[in-house]
């Protein structure tokens, strides 16, 4: 039974050494670009934009499932980052940009307070792309598509506090403390939202749960 617990926890995973090294290298590049941008080089800032815009858009889109609004939030996040670049205190540029974008997305969620009538477009849409390195076998692709569609529907049914925590933790890899800081709540609250959110997600999947077996 302990092995099964260990396997389960591996699913929500710890970063490999290779990934950690890549992160460190990326941070070094980001810091150099920030310094250049602070000297007034707009092209250096735009390189930062290029490096992080896909990640930010994907992140915001999962919180605000509306393409136009998500794009606006990301654009505002980059504007805000440029305006406040001098007050960047070091650390991970990716996390810093993520926090700015997530705050924007949460502002939007609070403003809307109602769910969109047509969240998440169909996954057959060519504007979706599978995560890099995924198995492209047609059968696996179809299964993943079905799972993603079911998950998107179920996620949309969660309270946005739970949805945000799950997306940030399970999808984007933020840790508990980072999420707590972003959402301005205690770490215990974040954990509770994630645990309850996962249970709610499983219940919301209903019969689609079968897609995830095996």
């Amino acid at each position: 039974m302990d092995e099964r617990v260990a396997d389960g926890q591996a699913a929500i995973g710890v970063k490999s050494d290779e990934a950690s090294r890549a992160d460190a290298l990326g941070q070094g590049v980001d810091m150099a670009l920030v310094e250049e941008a602070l000297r007034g080089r707009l092209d250096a800032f735009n390189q930062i934009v290029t490096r992080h815009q896909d990640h930010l858009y994907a992140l915001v889109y999962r919180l605000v499932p509306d393409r136009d609004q998500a794009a606006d939030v990301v654009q505002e996040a980059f504007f805000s980052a440029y305006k406040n670049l001098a007050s960047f205190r070091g650390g991970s540029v990716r996390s810093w940009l993520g926090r700015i974008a997530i705050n924007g997305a949460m502002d939007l969620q609070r403003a809307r307070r109602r769910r969109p009538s047509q969240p998440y477009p169909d996954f057959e849409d060519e504007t979706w792309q599978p995560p890099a390195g995924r198995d492209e076998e047609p059968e696996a692709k179809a299964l993943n598509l079905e799972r993603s569609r079911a998950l998107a529907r179920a996620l949309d049914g969660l309270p946005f506090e739970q949805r945000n925590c799950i997306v940030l933790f399970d999808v984007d890899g933020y840790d508990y403390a980072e999420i707590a800081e972003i959402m301005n709540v205690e770490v215990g609250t974040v954990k509770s939202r994630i645990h309850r959110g996962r249970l709610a997600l499983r219940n919301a999947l209903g019969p689609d749960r079968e897609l995830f077996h095996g």
Partner: protein
Amino acid sequence: MDRTASAAHAAHDELLIARLFGGDVGDSERETAVELMGACPDCAALFADLGSIAAATSTMPVPVRPRDFSLTEADATRLRRARSAGWTFAGLRRSLGGAVAALGFVGIVVTGAVSVFGSSGPTSTNLAYDTWNAQGRVASAPQFGAAASPAADLSLPSGAVPAATQAAMAAAQTATDRPVAVSGTGGGKSATAAPPVEPAPAESAPAGAAAASFAPVPAASSYIAEGPVAWSGSAASGAGSAADGATGRFSNNQHTDRGGMDARLVWLFGFGALFVIGLGVLLVPAALSRRRPRS
């Protein structure tokens, strides 16, 4: 899975299983959860589902961004201007907030110091006057000619003594070297000063108080004990040196303290409000920006 197992599962703590999956359990809870999973197939299925759902969530397809978010030169110029304006505003806000808070703080300290040191205990003159009253040397206090009308009693609204009257009172005090009772009407127009006199004699009235006429008022001493405020030290302070010199001598301690305390409370409240407003201007935007880490 039989029906009995499902019924039993309804009583099991699913959140505990979810916490076990998230690695958020202590040793004893972990044992309990593992036991549950060993005994209940539904709990074990729940754990497995959580794993597969979390894995699928982390590999959801990524939406393709609809446009490039790079900044144009026009965007950069606009944002630089906005940043400059923001800095200017922030500087002004900090300066203004700091000045207002400092003013409020100094005001509180000064007003507090005046309250503590400015009126603690009776002055020697008042003490002498109280003693003098206690000895019954004022069998009857003077009543005033000008104030003898029914409208005139021994009360004055706080701060209603005009400078001229205060000067007269000071003169009377100088001439008699004794405390003087004070009276006047609401507007202070008929107020006058009267030195307390020995039972004998109106003829001993001092020259400095020539404008005043005296008549015995048996209740004068009770006025001194219970009547309304004559004027406050702070109100008299701006009325000229003669009045300043007389401050505290012409009025009963208790009355002066009460009026002065009222005024000091108003000042304290005002300075306190300034201090709080200044702090608010300084700190609230900073707290908000810390709460929302946009930069």
